[in-house]
């Protein structure tokens, strides 16, 4: 009898370690959750730092550090915080931490202000209640604050990390190298460009939906090496596959390829602000200001060929600036311009460039799937319309400061939509540039008074029907004015060992808490 009990006890307590080894191309930029709005950094830090609300598997909002909320008035939301939650250092989580984190994420040296945009103030009511006071009614408040992550006030103060690091000045702080969150996993160590090791937070308030107790994230830059690591069994999961290897991995009996799309649109931005295009042979004027030129550039691009050849089928040719899965997307408005180099030539001639013109395209070469190859293909497609493009491809680390300093005439960028609402893209990419969240990545400095008005109205319109119609109109206007050259929406298959099961996520953030490893 006693022996039987012992056996039962052993069966009932499966506390052995299960490790998920995950590899992707990029390393995180920092461990400070308020510093950089960068997909991989968020993907890794959400294991450790939590927000007031979070996404479910199918991207609905559910309680996280807040257990419930109510709209006291359209501009006043009250959140009841979860009791008994502890940070990894043991300190209790209270309203003070929320107020502190709000003040911190708003600091101008970070790039995550967009997740609290529209929030005027966070007011502590008592230790477990806060109120968010808004500038105006917000239809997407809950989706916006998913990535507003809570840090411990006492820990930050003790370690002199009340301020976000100045990333552009290469500043390091305690918080950019160490973490202290409330999440399911704690970071045991980060060796830049080598690995990040996570262990289970045994005191976590929530319940795992899988069995993973340890996670090792390995950034592997080289495509071939990353695939080899998966084939040899060194890693369990690869979330960015080289497109040319996907078919082969599908045929591998030891692997499983999980298909899914990503809510990211790849596009070319054009300088529509300067009176003379900086990197061009056109002097005294800016051809990109002319709608006919922008339309010609759009018409010359054979998006189907890029899909078929460069992406090996792993893209959806794009006509609008948001991807399927984003609220506001609709197939009937995502119309790809007809490929027509001759028509493009004619339009250019009408615009006063019968012999075409020249400009330089800045392109990252290690950020998006096949980024440089797509740029090369564009060069030859535009050449057929008579536009001679000089390709200036460089690593993302050199590319991003150049683009942020507006030192560009044309550039490739990809925009993922973390809030799953098209306003995020319109506000960042199309709204006239300001120093804040509005136009934060409108690097071509598009300025359309009518669109600005619509976008500002979108921020505060809560009637879903009215708002959806407005989103649609703004996306159509952006498309018809050819403010950008959208190329495609990325598809992102993941490959994993047979024994691994994890839901595919369109924001490219594998959730270890949902994963099972056999």
């Amino acid at each position, binding site marked *: 009898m006693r022996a039987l009990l012992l056996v039962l006890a052993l069966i009932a307590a499966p506390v052995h370690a299960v490790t998920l080894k995950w590899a992707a191309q990029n390393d995180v930029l920092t461990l400070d959750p308020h510093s950089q709005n960068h997909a991989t950094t968020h993907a890794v830090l959400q294991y450790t730092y939590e927000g007031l609300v979070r996404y479910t598997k199918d991207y609905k909002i559910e309680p996280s550090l807040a257990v419930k909320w109510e709209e006291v008035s359209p501009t006043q939301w009250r959140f009841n915080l979860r009791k008994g939650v502890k940070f990894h250092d043991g300190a209790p989580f209270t309203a003070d931490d929320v107020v502190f984190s709000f003040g911190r994420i708003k600091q101008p040296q970070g790039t995550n202000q967009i997740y609290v945009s529209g929030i005027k103030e966070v007011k502590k009511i008592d230790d477990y209640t806060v109120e968010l006071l808004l500038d105006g009614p917000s239809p997407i408040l809950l989706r916006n604050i998913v990535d507003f992550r809570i840090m411990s006030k006492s820990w930050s103060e003790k370690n002199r990390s009340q301020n976000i690091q100045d990333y552009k000045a290469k500043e390091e702080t305690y918080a950019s190298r160490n973490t202290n969150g409330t999440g399911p996993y704690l970071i045991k160590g980060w060796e830049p460009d080598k690995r990040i090791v996570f262990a289970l937070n045994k005191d976590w308030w929530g319940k795992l939906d899988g069995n993973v107790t340890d996670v090792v994230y390995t950034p592997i830059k080289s495509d071939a090496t990353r695939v080899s690591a998966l084939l040899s069994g060194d890693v369990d999961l690869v979330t960015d596959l080289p497109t040319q290897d996907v078919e082969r991995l599908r045929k591998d009996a030891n692997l499983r390829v999980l298909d899914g799309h990503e809510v990211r649109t790849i596009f070319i931005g054009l300088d529509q602000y300067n009176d003379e295009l900086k990197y061009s042979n056109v002097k005294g004027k800016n051809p990109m200001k002319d709608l006919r030129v922008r339309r010609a550039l759009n018409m010359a691009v054979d998006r189907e060929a890029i899909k*078929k050849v460069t992406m090996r089928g792993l893209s959806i040719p794009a006509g609008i600036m948001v991807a399927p899965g984003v609220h506001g997307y609709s197939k009937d408005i995502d119309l790809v311009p007809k490929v027509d180099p001759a028509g493009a030539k004619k339009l250019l001639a009408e615009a006063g460039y019968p012999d075409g013109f020249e400009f330089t395209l800045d392109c990252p070469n290690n950020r998006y799937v096949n980024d440089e190859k797509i740029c090369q293909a564009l060069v030859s497609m535009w050449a057929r319309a008579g536009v001679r*493009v000089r390709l200036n491809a460089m690593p993302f680390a050199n590319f991003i400061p150049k683009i942020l300093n507006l030192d560009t005439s044309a550039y490739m960028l990809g925009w993922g939509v973390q809030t799953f609402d098209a306003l995020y893209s319109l506000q960042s990419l199309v709204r006239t540039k300001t120093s804040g969240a509005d136009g934060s990545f409108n690097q071509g400095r598009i300025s359309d008074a009518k669109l600005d008005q619509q976008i500002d109205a979108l921020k505060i319109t809560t009637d879903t029907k009215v708002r959806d119609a407005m989103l649609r109109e703004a996306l159509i206007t952006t498309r018809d004015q050819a403010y950008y050259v959208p190329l495609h929406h990325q598809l992102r298959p993941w490959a994993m060992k047979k024994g691994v099961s994890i839901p595919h996520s369109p924001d490219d953030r594998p959730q270890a808490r949902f994963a099972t490893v056999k």
Partner: protein
Amino acid sequence: MFLKTVWQHDLAWSFRRSPVTVVAAILTVVCVGAALAAPWLAPQDPFNMAALNLNDAFTPPAWDERGVGRYPLGTDNQGRDILSTIMHGARISLGVGLASVFLSLVFGVSLGLLAGYFGGRLDAVIMRIADVQLSFPAILIALLVDGVARVALPAERHDDIAIPVLVLSIGFAGWVQYARTVRGSTMVEREKEYVQAARVIGRRPLAILLLHVLPNVTGPVLVIATIHIATAIITEATLSFLGVGVPATRPSLGTLIRIGNEFLYSGEWWITVFPGLALVILVLSVNLLGDWLRDALNPKLR
């Protein structure tokens, strides 16, 4: 008459006697000829962006069932004809190789002559610099020069200056061998009567160096230069393989191999294998010619 003289010359005789050398020479001539005549012979101009069609990309070689006759060796990932790209790429590789060897030669021979003739402190300084440089691999020095040039020069002009920068960096990395060889020979020649006589009648050092010493030290230099061409082509290919060489829109052999390398797993082997093969044939035949020249010019081996 002239042909007959050439035919009966020592070198020609030793050339005829070595079948390997004859094959190497023929291959070299074919490679160089194909490279020089690329603009007229190549089926496609791979640098004319408007002529490329992305829909033709990844076409296998003509003998494959999916291949087409238009692209005898297949196409790369942008729809460039591999054969044409190899011919144009070899042009760049050879051009960069020859130009950088010439640069090393001029630089190395001048320094070697100065060091060997004047000796003393000048000799010590030049040779210590040479020793220091010898302790770094040539590719590292080329990377260094290339990196510095890239930072120093404006980014938007990189494409125009990529090839001169490449020539400069490979040329700079290779001067030591010439300087050492020439210095040694010069030290020997310096003591010979004809040099002393020239000095006695009051010729200026520059004239002595260029008119009297230089012609007598060129033999070994030519041998080194021939072998060095092969090394320079390899260095260029390595730099381009690492992605710091010529711009991607004007691929050299090394760039082609790098591009093709990404597609080895997915089965498009021809993108990397044919340029690789071309590089091997070119380098091997130039090397064999250099070896033969070294043996033929060495009186001890005759």
